């Protein structure tokens, strides 16, 4: 592990991060569009849909919630679903902790407000490779958030758009992106062992445990490799 020093975060870093994540954000725009169109068929008013996109900002959760929405909402199942689907964010935040802890508390948490899959994955890769700034996390988060809002709004207003996101391969965006992130970093035996264990555990959890537990189970299984195989700092 390289020495960990406090990451930098200037306005210029944030702007660079914004432009860096914008291409992948365009996919998020299309997802937002699909969500807006789907929301039109639900019992939610347009204002409520937008308010949810703005404050909740979590694609999979919002899609899942549409099905549960009615004159009465099962509040506890709804909140538990929200928590379960996005429990991966807890782990993502924890993975950035070694760097974020070196920031003042306010800055630390402010930079997590738009934490999302794409900006997290790129930031983690950057930090692990010694590129020590949080511009991608914050600026990228702003790009993702903006595109999600723009997509939702466009879907609500147009009422139609991409009828079937699957037909143009959009269901594979997340898969292809995560795969590219897995392949971008440096590999060694310790890492490969952790990832292999994570894959097996995640698969088993996906098959046999309650829905949405696979990320936590897989990540914790991978983490145990770290408990027994300590990474020694580079000289």
């Amino acid at each position, binding site marked *: 592990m390289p020495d960990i020093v406090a990451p930098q975060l200037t306005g210029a870093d944030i702007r660079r991060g914004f432009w860096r994540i914008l291409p992948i954000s365009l996919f998020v725009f299309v997802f937002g569009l699909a969500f807006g169109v789907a929301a039109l068929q639900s019992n939610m008013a347009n204002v409520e849909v937008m308010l949810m996109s703005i404050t909740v900002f979590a694609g999979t959760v919002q899609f899942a919630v549409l099905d549960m929405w009615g004159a009465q909402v099962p509040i506890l199942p709804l909140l538990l679903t929200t928590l379960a689907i996005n429990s991966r964010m807890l*782990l*993502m935040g924890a993975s950035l902790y070694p760097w974020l802890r070196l920031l003042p508390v306010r800055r630390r948490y402010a930079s997590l407000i738009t934490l999302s899959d794409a900006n997290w994955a790129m930031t983690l890769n950057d930090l692990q490779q010694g590129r020590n700034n949080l511009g991608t996390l914050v600026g990228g988060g702003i790009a993702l958030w903006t595109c999600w809002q723009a997509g939702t709004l466009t879907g609500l207003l147009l009422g139609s758009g991409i009828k079937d996101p699957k037909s*143009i*391969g959009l269901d594979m965006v997340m898969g292809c992106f995560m795969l590219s992130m897995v392949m971008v970093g440096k590999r060694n035996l310790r890492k490969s062992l952790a990832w292999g264990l994570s894959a097996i555990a995640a698969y088993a959890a996906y098959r046999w445990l309650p829905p949405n537990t696979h990320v936590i189970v897989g990540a914790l299984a991978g983490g145990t490799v770290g408990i027994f195989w300590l*990474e020694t700092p580079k000289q």
Partner: protein
Amino acid sequence: MMSTEGYGVYLVIALMALVMLFTRFGGVFITGLLPLRPRVMSFIDAMSGSVLVAVLVPIAVEADMAGRLGMLATAGVMLLTARPMAGVSLGILVTALIRFGGMS
């Protein structure tokens, strides 16, 4: 059950937003309570990349043949160029083309 009549709907959305804020902030906060021994840091280090893998696995399992070939294309680009956006774009393109051609 909770009514979404009147202000109820805003309360439901606010509660969801709070849960999301907890998941975004909670990881850093909870880790902050742990003693930062080398073993804990090593755990975090091994866990972090494992999140990516764990997210990826069900997607690959559930994907149709077009999706899997798309991911293969992404992997190919990453091996050759190490450029994520190029990899993702080609992966989506391959998936879409195969589905468009009705081959899956």
